[in-house]
């Protein structure tokens, strides 16, 4: 495949050179390229835009967004990380903590536990409200006491045998309904997402008795509120062979890229390299370390093809998170449109 014409390459590809990256910024604004009409056209955008879902497995989702600009794709990524709300433990009322874990460390650990509660059912707490109402707070209790196991063998040194309740897991957190929450959420089962998160270790005589309040918050405030394990994107790789590469050079070329990217075909007895699936490559740029190969390959990325990977912590499914993120960006625009309409501009 021949390399693109100069202007097309500048517009559509980010080129990875040996020592630097070229054409990084978006330049397709009106007036930059003579002969191109770059003004915003919603219809042209809608025709070219598509979303392809590649894989959805449990809490992780991989999908492609094609035909959109970096600014907007990045806005979605930033919102997924920091502005989609969730419920997490905010206030911990410590009634008794004789364990070796300090109060504040215990409270910090409890805050980081993901809580399976749909944040859309709750409101934000009003600023300055210390107690919380049933529409903005979830209450959990963790009450556990470690004791010696009377049935343990005399010479045993295994803590699992010697002691009862010596490991405090997130499954020991129980939901305590506030006010009319049992009526508001009759089928709800509010608990941590994972049952086997180890919170603290105890020995006989030590106990933990705390009451926790969960509130709704966003990742910008504290990372415990972030709903994604991570959300990231990469651009689709585009590998072009500028000249035919054969025999030994083809073998070397295949080793320079991730497995599956370059395939070697047998044409008329000679081994010829061909780009099979550029998407799999991670661009280690190993090919630039080989003098004979570095001028025969062009490494680039397609500027408007984003491969998103969203992994949720389990509170909400990843596709719901992406939908919520898009709605939040719409909400931001709406907020300023309302401001513009409400205040008469002089």
């Amino acid at each position, binding site marked *: 495949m021949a390399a693109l014409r100069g202007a097309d390459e500048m517009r559509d590809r980010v080129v990875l050179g040996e020592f630097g990256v070229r054409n990084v910024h978006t330049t397709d604004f009106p007036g930059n390229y003579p002969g191109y009409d770059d003004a915003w056209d919603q219809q042209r955008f*809608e025709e070219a835009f598509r979303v392809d879902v590649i894989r959805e497995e449990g809490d992780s989702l991989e999908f492609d967004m094609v035909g959109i600009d970096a600014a907007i794709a*990045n806005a979605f990524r930033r919102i997924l990380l920091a502005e989609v709300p969730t419920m997490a433990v905010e206030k911990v009322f410590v009634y008794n903590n004789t364990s070796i874990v300090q109060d504040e460390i215990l409270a910090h650990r409890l805050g980081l536990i993901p809580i399976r509660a749909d944040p859309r059912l709750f409101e934000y707490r009003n600023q300055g409200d210390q107690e919380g109402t049933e529409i903005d707070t979830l209450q959990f209790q963790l009450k556990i006491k470690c004791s010696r196991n009377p049935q343990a063998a005399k010479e045993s040194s295994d803590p699992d045998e010697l002691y009862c309740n010596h490991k405090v897991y997130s499954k020991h957190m129980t939901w305590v309904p506030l006010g009319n929450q049992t009526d508001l959420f009759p089928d709800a089962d509010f608990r941590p997402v994972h049952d086997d998160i180890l919170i603290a270790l105890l020995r006989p005589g030590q106990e933990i008795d705390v009451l926790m309040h969960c509130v709704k918050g966003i990742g910008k405030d504290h990372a415990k509120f972030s709903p994604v394990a991570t959300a990231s994107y990469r651009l689709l790789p585009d590998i072009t062979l500028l000249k035919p590469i054969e025999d030994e050079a083809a073998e070397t070329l295949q080793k320079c890229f991730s497995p599956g990217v370059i395939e070697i075909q047998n044409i008329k007895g000679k081994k010829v390299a061909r780009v099979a699936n550029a998407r799999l490559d991670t661009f280690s740029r190993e090919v630039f370390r080989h003098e004979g190969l570095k001028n025969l390959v062009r490494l680039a990325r397609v500027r408007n093809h984003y491969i998103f990977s969203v992994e949720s912590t389990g509170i909400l499914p990843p596709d719901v998170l992406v939908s919520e993120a898009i709605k939040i*960006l719409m909400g931001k625009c709406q907020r*300023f449109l309302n401001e*513009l309409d409400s205040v008469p501009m002089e």
Partner: protein
Amino acid sequence: MAGSGDRTALETIQADGTDGNCVTFVLHDEDHTLGNSLRYMVMKNPDVEFCGYCITHPSESKINFRIQTRGALPAVEPFRKGLNDLMAVCQHVLSTFERSMKEYRAQREEEMQ
């Protein structure tokens, strides 16, 4: 955490003597998320001569968003158009994404049977 209280979310700064062509909008409680995407949409408008944004100080969460237009067009117009265009883009992305998810799930159901 969620509300901004009595403070308005949007202020306008305009130099004396100009007639609305070049205006700096101060957007409170915003950062690169809205700033960069809105800047892209406003730059796609051929009537806009200059559009840029900056975060005045990393400790304050507000951005200065400046628009200068060609001719006599008031700067509020490209700003409003940019917001509307960005809303339309998000709407289309949302519906396309939800449709693709539905198709993917339907296809997986078929393959499982």
